[in-house]
């Protein structure tokens, strides 16, 4: 951005960047618009279908479900905008929780030490994914599939080797547990309704991710890398650095989720987390992220997580026959995605 572009001749209206767009049209061009419309539709639908959906306590539950998913969906969306996948994200959450728990327990250390070690280990795995990807040829799909399998095996193997059982021992009687629980798994009561602290973590991540994407140079790099890696490299974008950073972002999200898991349930089952990585990707896609990269937003991914949370809990509030649970979920998700797609098409057409 240092070189000054030649000033366009005054009155020259052919340059598309100078065409004035109305605020409405600008809004229509936002990637998250489709998902916001979808979210409103899903919200209205369940408000009519399920009586208890609109209770404050129900909304708190829906927000909790959305936040545990959204904490991962937001960094996963950033990674997808950067053109990559992370299939190891689901089990990485479990890894992160296992490391804190087992390190604290085995060393009889204050649990905060375990939490710190866990952050280090989790970010290291993110760096591993990023470095493997940028140094070698295979696509991120294969690389992170490898990491996914390795982590799944290591979660089980190490837990069994160290604890002797497949779940960790309870650390709830150890020093530091209470304060860590306050940070990662506290319930904040507002007007008699309990809101989980994960909602705050989620909101914070949305704000930080949006700021990075729209207001910093790194944000431009992410869009550029996802839009066309070679072109980005040609104009001097540090492609490898950006991608490693994105994987570290996902790892950071996994760390927060993992600590929440540990401190709200005291013990961690080593087999958990498998399959969640796809749900994070689904949330990001519903939120308007393109599978091919280069397009999307953090707010969209968060709204995608919100839709997923509303649908999965709305089905329960509506007391639909639970044999069909997964079917309903699939139908709702497809509808939300199609609506999202349609709105985006309209928006692009009116540009």
């Amino acid at each position, binding site marked *: 951005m240092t070189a000054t572009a030649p000033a366009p001749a005054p009155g020259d209206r052919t340059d598309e960047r100078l065409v004035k767009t109305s605020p409405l049209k600008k809004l229509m061009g936002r990637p998250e618009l489709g998902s916001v419309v979808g979210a409103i539709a899903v919200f209205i639908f369940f408000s009519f279908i*399920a009586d208890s959906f609109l209770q404050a*306590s*129900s909304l708190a*539950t*829906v927000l*909790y*479900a959305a936040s*545990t998913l959204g904490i991962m969906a937001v960094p996963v969306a950033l990674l997808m905008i950067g053109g990559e996948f992370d299939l190891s994200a689901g089990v990485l959450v479990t890894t992160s929780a296992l490391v804190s728990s087992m390190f*604290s*327990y*085995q*060393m*009889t*250390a*204050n*649990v*905060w*030490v375990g*939490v*710190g*070690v866990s*952050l*280090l280990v989790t970010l290291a795995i993110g*760096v591993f994914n990023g*470095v493997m990807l940028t140094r070698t040829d295979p696509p991120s799909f294969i690389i992170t599939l490898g990491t996914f399998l390795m982590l*799944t095996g290591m979660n*089980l193997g190490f*837990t069994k080797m160290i604890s002797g*059982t*497949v*779940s960790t021992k*309870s*650390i*709830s*009687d*150890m*020093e530091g547990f209470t304060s860590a629980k306050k940070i990662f798994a506290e319930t904040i009561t507002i007007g008699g309704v309990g809101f989980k602290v994960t909602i705050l973590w989620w909101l914070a991540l949305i704000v930080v991710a949006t700021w990075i994407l729209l207001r910093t140079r790194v944000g431009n790099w992410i869009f550029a890398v996802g839009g066309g890696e070679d072109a980005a490299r040609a104009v001097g974008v*540090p492609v*490898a*650095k950006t991608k*490693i950073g994105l994987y570290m972002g996902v790892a950071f999200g996994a760390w927060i989720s993992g600590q*929440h*898991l540990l401190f*709200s*349930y*005291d*013990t961690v*089952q080593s*087999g*958990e987390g*498998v*399959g*969640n990585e796809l749900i994070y990707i689904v949330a990001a896609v519903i939120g308007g992220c393109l599978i091919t990269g280069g397009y999307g937003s953090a707010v969209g991914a968060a709204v995608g997580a919100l839709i997923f949370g509303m649908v999965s*809990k709305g089905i329960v*509030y509506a*007391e639909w026959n*639970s*044999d069909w*649970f*997964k079917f309903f979920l699939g139908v709702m998700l497809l509808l939300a995605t199609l609506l999202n797609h349609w709105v985006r098409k309209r928006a692009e057409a009116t540009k």
Partner: protein
Amino acid sequence: MARVKTGVRTVGAVLVAVLGVTAGLTGCSSTGGKRAEDARKAATAQGKAAVNTPRWTVGMVTHSGDGDTFWDIVQSGAEQAARKDNINFLYAHDDEAQQQAQLVDSYIDKKVDGIIVTLAKPDAMKGALARAKKAGIPVITVNSGSAESKKFGALTHIGQDETIAGEAVGEELNKRGKKKALCILHEQGNVGHEQRCDGAKKTFDGKMQNLYVTGTNMPDVQSSVEARLQTDKSIDAVVTLGAPFADTAVKAADSAGSKAEIDTFDLNETVAAGLKSGDLGFAVDQQPYLQGYQAVDLLWLYKYNADVLGGGRPVLTGPQIITKDQAAELEEYAKRGTR
């Protein structure tokens, strides 16, 4: 690339610094942890072989998924018996029926002296059991498949009949005067789970509904149970089908402001503690340790003495209803991983 390296190194250095500060500030925990556990079980002796029979090999193949706490206890029971009986114990598991059958085949190829197998998906295992019989390898079925065990040529079956266990739950709920119950299934499509809930429905005088949750995602389990309890305030009992989900259901009831009693299948340390404190109503135990232990021991008895137990009928290890009264005693055993 050089810039990447520097970046990574800087981040690493910062993390190490943060970690160092954390460790320096806080240090060790004087409560709980490994040290407390070591102190607790300072004098637990590891048994030696109690017999001098040849070192036979027994292979066990279950339908357990990865990292299942229940199967961990079954396995530890089998290992304990194997140690005592001078048996070389092999264990493999796969939740896909076809893979499980292949594992049995590979044990047959290894010419083991006995096979222990679960029949969660009986039809898929039928061929494997026939091959074992042809190879002259005695088979004992455990846990699931009490109806098919004899038909498929197994010596005997050791386990709990899921329907009977479910019925016991329904009766216990009646005894406690419950009117509307919720059955939480953490694996959609698991036959044993359906049988438990159906059995409970059969004997329960009140109304019982099923709720499917994603067992591999604890926050989802919690928010789903929470959602249902918020919707229907008349639910006064929640039955979970696995020990790890009981504690989560307690948390869900708490945040939904529901007075529902939480009951569960299976036992672990947390469940025992929950029963003791009154957070949980009762647990239906099928004694997984006993299933593993008995299977190995019976194979040894068969090889050594041609003994068979059950007379062609399944040997039931459950259901045993556990309430507050037995909880204190069982908590200790659950802690060491044998109940």
